[in-house]
């Protein structure tokens, strides 16, 4: 018997207490949706998990009105300390129900239980914990004394880190004093619906958080709703563009966290074994369904063969399979649509002339799967060097000098993240200085922390989530406004210091 064929180590689903169908969570209760209900399935075997309500325009109206009422009558009148206490309660409940949430997430999303258990859910709790502490300390956020909330926030999140993206949206919004209507992604509503139960356990005042399930139409109705003050969106650049356009002129504050095609730069003086881990983590963690994935490996030409060789050896111990098996490293692709897109772009890669290599993985019969794939001999002009695949596909390019690495890394409309691998501190910092990316990881990758701001340059979006900077998206800035009129005999007051919103180019 081969030891490496580890015996099954399934995480039990018995911890789940799923309903057969879920309604919309509005005003602190589950209510009926009036759109056409849909199903959520497990992408690992295409089995049905539950039926989920869909919110139509009237439901969206109700949700927004409920959030508005809760803002006006309860949440905006509540002290920051009390808002913080609710958020602390939520954090603790997430910790208490951590295993249940992790299993639900892996079941619905397809990601390995090892990741939802060890990465996603702990970060969710941490995010609520961190922002709980800010709720009564907004004076220190760097936005002037007693900054005010915006009101009702419309939040639309993607399917790749369902519960974590929910935490990234809800925690700062509530800490800052806003109420929320959030739409989870169509293929991954489950953890959000269990989260709604947690909100009931926390006794969060009704209407402060509303969770409405649905597809693109629901999302569009929500972000375009006239009584929404703030829109926060994480998802594709294409939809982000559409939102930026449709909300133009409405006065709504927008933050967008969009796609990426991050460069993971490996220099010849990189700590080699850790760099290999960093490459693997960068593109194969979460099946590559990561906006900040290191999908372009930029390797210094003089160590290219060595790196690729080691990389291939390393990939031979990656385990693809049942997301609920504790030893699985690579889970299922979230949906048929996404799988088709990954396959299509991979075929393009071959046609463009790149050399394709795929890890030897046994692919289950049912479900959506894609084995880790590496394309070498990729040039900057190839589509697979420019377009986001959002799957476990790595494109490998080379460079000769640090300056060339930087130029290639920056040569993209995206600018979300980047990785730098080198044992030399001065080079790491100089390269980091010049990368046009919102998050730069040096000798590590895919590190997230509620205290650390995250967000992109250029077409990867604008605004930051996490850290003190993450509060700015949900508070009124005192810095923007007209010059006061000249009063005879008195000099005009200097305009208030501009707040530094993260909309850099």
């Amino acid at each position, binding site marked *: 018997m081969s030891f490496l064929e580890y015996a099954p180590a399934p995480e039990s689903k018995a911890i789940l207490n799923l309903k057969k169908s879920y309604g919309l969570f509005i005003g602190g209760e589950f209510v009926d949706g009036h759109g056409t209900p849909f199903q959520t399935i497990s992408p690992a075997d295409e089995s049905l998990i539950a039926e989920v309500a869909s919110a139509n325009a009237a439901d969206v109206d109700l949700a927004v009105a409920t959030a508005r009422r809760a803002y006006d009558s309860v949440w905006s009148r509540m002290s920051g300390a009390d808002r913080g206490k609710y958020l602390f309660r939520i954090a603790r409940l997430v910790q208490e129900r951590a295993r249940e949430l992790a299993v639900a997430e892996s079941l619905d999303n397809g990601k390995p239980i090892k990741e939802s258990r060890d990465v996603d859910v702990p970060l969710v709790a941490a995010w609520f914990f961190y922002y709980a502490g800010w709720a009564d300390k907004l004076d220190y956020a760097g936005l002037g004394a007693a900054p005010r909330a915006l009101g009702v926030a419309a939040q639309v999140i993607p399917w790749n880190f369902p519960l974590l993206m929910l935490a990234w949206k809800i925690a700062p919004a509530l800490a800052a004093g806003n109420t929320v209507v959030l739409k989870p992604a169509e293929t991954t509503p489950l953890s959000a619906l269990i989260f709604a139960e947690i909100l009931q356990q926390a006794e969060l005042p009704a209407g402060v958080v509303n969770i409405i399930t649905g597809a693109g139409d629901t999302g569009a109705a929500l972000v375009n709703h006239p009584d929404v003050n703030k829109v926060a969106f994480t998802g594709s650049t294409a939809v982000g563009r559409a939102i930026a356009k449709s909300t133009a002129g409405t006065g709504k504050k927008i933050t967008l966290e969009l796609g990426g095609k991050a460069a993971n730069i490996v220099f010849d003086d990189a*700590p080699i*074994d850790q760099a290999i881990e960093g490459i693997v983590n960068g593109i194969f963690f979460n099946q590559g369904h990561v906006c900040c994935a290191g999908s372009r490996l930029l390797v210094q030409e003089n160590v290219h063969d060595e790196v690729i060789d080691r990389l291939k050896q390393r990939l031979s111990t990656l385990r693809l399979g049942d997301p609920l098996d504790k030893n699985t490293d690579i889970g299922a692709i979230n949906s048929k649509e996404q799988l088709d897109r990954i396959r299509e772009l991979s075929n393009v890669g071959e046609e463009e002339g790149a050399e394709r290599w795929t890890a030897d993985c046994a692919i289950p019969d049912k479900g959506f799967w894609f084995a880790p794939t590496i394309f070498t001999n990729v040039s900057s002009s190839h589509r697979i060097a420019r377009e986001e695949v959002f799957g476990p596909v790595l494109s490998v390019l080379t460079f000769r000098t640090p300056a060339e690495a930087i130029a290639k890394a920056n040569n993209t409309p995206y600018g979300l993240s980047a990785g730098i691998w080198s044992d030399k501190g001065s080079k790491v910092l100089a390269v980091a200085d010049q990368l046009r990316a919102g998050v730069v990881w040096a*000798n590590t990758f895919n590190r997230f922390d509620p205290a650390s701001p995250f967000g992109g340059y250029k077409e990867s979006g604008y605004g930051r989530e996490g850290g003190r900077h993450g509060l700015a998206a949900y508070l009124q800035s005192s810095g923007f406004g007209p010059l006061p009129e000249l009063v005879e005999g008195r000099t005009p007051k200097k305009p208030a210091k501009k707040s530094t919103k993260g909309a850099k180019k």
Partner: protein
Amino acid sequence: MTVEQAIALAPAERAIQLIGADLTEKSLKLHLDGLSGVDAVGLEARAADLSTRSIKTTSKAWALDKIIELIDLTTLEGADTPGKVRSLVAKAMTPDASDPSCPRPAAVCVYGDMVPVAAEALGSLKGLDQPGGGINVAAVATAFPSGRASLAVKLADTRDAVANGADEIDMVIDRGAFLSGRYGLVFDQIVAVKDACRKADGSFAHLKVILETGELNTYDNVRRASWLSILAGGDFIKTSTGKVSPAATLPVTLLMLQVVNDWHRLTGEKIGVKPAGGIRTSKDAIKYLVTVAETVGEEWLQPHLFRFGASSLLNDVLLQRQKLTTGRYSGPDYVTID
């Protein structure tokens, strides 16, 4: 500023193969200093990730038996007596009195002057490689654990142990020399000890080189010392004496396995790894098996390429084994104190 003299080193085969015939302390140092650095945070994260593997049911049963087969059952106390050593050997020969199917450890590890006692106690079972299996006698030597003695004394220590019948020698490197940059001295000592492992019949006692990673302190040092020990002719690289804390850790063992992997990719030759000290539970030992299999390959999970230097680990494994067979949690009364 002076120009260093290029002092010639003892002509160890692997070193010549890799560095060239012009083998000097200088060329050795250049090679060792040119090795890739280790990012400690990344190394430890990878070790932590390997620790999350869940080894259950049939895999666990296999792993438990394998762990036993890989143990060098050890007693290294100043207070060791013939009685203590005989008791240890008896335990190695019959680890679980209630279960004759229980495998045996690969070796017993004792001080050099206790080798005759161990050899006599083992009787016909002495010798790992005999048909039907057996148990080797490993002796620590070279002024273990500190290594602070003249080369002459360290070689005499080694020769005595070999003459007494030791099948394996666990030597310590001179950490003081290593930390003060005298790589040539460390190298030559290993070569000399390897030579002192020659038995009367011309074969060699197999040599494990203890780096004492706790004293080397940084992972970069461990990487260099691992390469140095392999180039000088060691058959195994070993983490620790067990007398210094920290002893074996998963990250440091992972690093040493990576070096062994690199050497194998480079030359096709397989070097063994032995973590020693501080591995007390089956749970921990299983993490090491996983780390070996996923770093350098399952092939290394055999006594010629991997050992655990341990004493109390054996009983914990036996307790786990008993649970797997009986279905209930066991207790200390059901395993023998050796």
